């Protein structure tokens, strides 16, 4: 511990703490803009400047380590004056248009200007050159609004290891973006939207699908159904002032009904279906490897629910493409079934049904437009709203979200199990898969407390578990005594590390779950801002509570899934499943 003084308070700071860490721990608020937790400070924005006794210049709190006996002032007139000047300079070049900006009311720069009491900008200067990049299906970049804090650069390079964004040029002319100021479509971008999630201003956002959804809802000839991903219910409330981790499933359903959707369904149902298909696919691969001794069988098998990960693999890990499960994501399985099985049931053609998804994700917008995703003959999913976009639509419709009564999803595609809920967080898909696979093979419930595989939970980047199969049912006797080894990675930087370990032969697994975003879908690029680890953990807690609150907690128990197999699909991996629920991916570049 290091003793120092902050604003006259005696503070004991942790060894290695920065002034910012120490101040936060002591309850002293220092504004920040470029700061990102767990990342090396860039010190780019200078908003966190503080006065350190004995130092000539003001020091950036995020990048200044605490020293013994240090005397820090965070709110002197000099500090206040300087911070205001810095923010005024940022505002002078920021091509903001606040009232019409998508970030109006949800902008860190705006909030900072308000907190610092800036009522006018005293500097007149050149505005940052505006360039709008709409080259990708999921993301829109507007350079005129960029304040060059470089948070997006850090997440794109250090966290996700994708490297689409980097500062280009130098000085005032610096822009943040792809090589030589080109568009995102010209470089490798997996459209995970983590850049949009950390952008403090309106420089990076999701592509607007709200207008398309409003138009579909207004069109009386269209039957418009909505599916909501499991991660939405644990985060949507934040957009209406609820603390992180508040579950708003019932209010969300009522709000969707009031918006005018003809049916409110749950992506959970196809998450359960994914488990059935993917679980059987894994068992088939294991059979090929262990019994048929087929040298060509690709193990470990990787999950394929996360479209950013799929695109990452297509670009950076083409050698692992045969290892990807052929299962489409729950979003796309839902679209394919809504426009075939469900459409037939209500006497409509695929063309008359509009499928809207609500996703925590920007990459889902890209996924819905992939040419492979037209099993029904038309695009299986028409529009993908992020959690943030749904919140905006609810507000625009004049709905008092907090006053809404709880509603229930419609049958049959609104039935869910706890196993599907936990698809929302890292480790969840694996746990759900093992709950079903273990029971299928042994006839007994997964032998862990409360059905939770604790080694796979939490925010550690790469997690592992092993499960020994004993007393297998006769049909699965080839698995008797086999120790099934699994791994979980979240955040593409961690995924890349895990792939490298597997390539080098340092680790071997049967089944690997990869989620693109840190924390999994609950930390997705389309979730309410701002998502840090504290928020991630609260959302994860909410998801586990949702799971534990359900009577049905295993995918194979979902009555809608059972009905689907009985009436339409036949058996897992059957002909119909292959047609509608599976796909293949090709290397890019």
């Amino acid at each position: 511990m290091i003793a120092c003084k902050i604003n006259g308070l005696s503070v004991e700071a942790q060894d290695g703490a920065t002034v910012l860490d120490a101040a936060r721990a002591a309850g002293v608020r220092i504004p920040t803009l470029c700061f990102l937790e767990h990342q090396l400070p860039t010190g780019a924005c200078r908003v966190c400047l503080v006065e350190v006794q004995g130092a000539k210049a003001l020091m950036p709190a995020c990048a200044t380590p605490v020293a013994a006996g240090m005397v820090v002032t965070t709110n002197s007139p000099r500090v206040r004056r300087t911070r205001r000047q810095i923010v005024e300079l940022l505002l002078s070049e920021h091509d903001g248009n606040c009232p019409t900006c998508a970030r109006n009311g949800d902008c860190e720069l705006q909030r900072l200007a308000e907190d610092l009491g800036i009522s006018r900008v005293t500097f007149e200067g050149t505005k940052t050159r505006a360039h709008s990049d709409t080259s990708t299906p999921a993301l829109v970049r507007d350079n005129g609004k960029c304040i060059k804090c470089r948070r997006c650069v850090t997440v794109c390079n250090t966290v996700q290891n994708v490297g689409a964004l980097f500062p280009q040029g130098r000085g005032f002319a610096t822009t943040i973006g792809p090589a030589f100021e080109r568009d995102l479509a010209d470089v490798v971008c997996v459209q995970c939207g983590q850049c949009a999630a950390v952008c403090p201003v309106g420089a990076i956002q999701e592509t607007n699908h709200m207008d398309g959804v409003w138009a579909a809802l207004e069109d009386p000839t269209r039957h418009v159904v909505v599916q909501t991903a499991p991660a939405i219910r644990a985060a949507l409330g934040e957009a209406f002032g609820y603390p992180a981790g508040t579950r708003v499933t019932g209010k969300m359903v009522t709000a969707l009904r009031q918006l005018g959707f003809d049916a409110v369904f749950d992506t959970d149902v196809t998450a359960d279906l994914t488990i059935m298909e993917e679980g059987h696919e894994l068992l088939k691969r294991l059979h090929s490897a262990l019994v048929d001794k087929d040298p060509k069988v690709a193990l470990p098998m990787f999950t394929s629910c996360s479209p950013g990960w799929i695109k990452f693999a297509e670009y950076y890990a083409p050698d692992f493409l045969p290892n990807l499960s052929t299962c489409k994501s729950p979003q796309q399985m839902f679209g394919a079934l809504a426009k075939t099985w469900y459409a037939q049931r209500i006497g409509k053609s695929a063309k008359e049904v509009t499928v809207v998804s609500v996703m925590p994700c920007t990459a889902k917008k890209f996924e819905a437009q992939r040419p492979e995703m037209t099993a029904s003959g038309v695009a299986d999913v028409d529009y993908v709203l992020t959690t943030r976009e749904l919140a905006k639509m609810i507000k625009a419709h004049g709905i008092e979200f907090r006053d809404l009564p709880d509603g229930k999803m419609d049958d049959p595609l609104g039935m869910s199990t706890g196993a599907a809920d936990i698809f929302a967080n890292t480790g969840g898909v694996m746990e759900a898969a093992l709950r079903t696979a273990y029971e299928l093979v042994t006839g007994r419930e997964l032998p862990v407390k409360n059905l939770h595989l604790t080694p796979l939970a939490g925010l550690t980047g790469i997690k592992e578990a092993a499960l020994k199969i004993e007393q297998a049912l006769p049909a699965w006797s080839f698995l008797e005594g086999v120790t099934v080894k699994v791994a979980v990675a979240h955040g593409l930087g961690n995924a890349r590390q895990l792939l490298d370990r597997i390539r080098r032969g340092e680790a071997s697994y049967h089944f690997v779950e990869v989620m693109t975003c840190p924390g999994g879908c609950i930390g997705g690029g389309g979730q309410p801002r701002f998502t840090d680890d504290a928020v991630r953990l609260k959302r994860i807690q909410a998801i586990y509570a949702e799971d534990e609150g359900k009577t049905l907690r295993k995918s194979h128990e979902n009555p809608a899934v059972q009905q689907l197999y009985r009436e339409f699909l036949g058996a897992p991996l059957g002909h119909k499943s292959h047609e509608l629920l599976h796909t293949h991916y090709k290397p890019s570049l």
Partner: protein
Amino acid sequence: MADSLTCECACKGADGAAPSEAELMKRLDEVLDEHRAQPGGLIPVLQIAQAIFGYLPESAMRKIAEAFHKSFSEVAGVVSFYSFFSTVPRGRHLVRVCLGTACYVRGGREVLDALKKRLGIDVGQTTADRRFSLAVGRCFGACGMGPVIMVDDTVHQRVKSARVGELLEEHS
């Protein structure tokens, strides 16, 4: 590093003819084999590549990015940060004018204007006969001799704007 900056190879192949693009790429491959993934090796390799090609073609930058396990955007960020790098073909001679503070106050700007007028090109451009390219720099580390310009690797000191024509004539 100074050795690699001088043009050893871009002009002529072993038989005196201009080397083909494929031959130049082969040279880059050899350089990359030597420096691959070396920490801190990116900028030196970019300099060598520029000496090989006379500029930095996109194909070369992509190859370098791959060898250093960096993204193309990151390599582009480094290349666009330093004015010594060029992504467009340059003339046989590169004229660089220092506009650092010392040179600027001693007439650097006038020298630049005179060069622009004389060559009929703007900064970043190359004359139609591919003889000269014009660039600016911020301080060559010769502040006591300002205003300074560099033609290729030669530093010219106390340049007078009226006499830039004579200076250019020395370079064919």
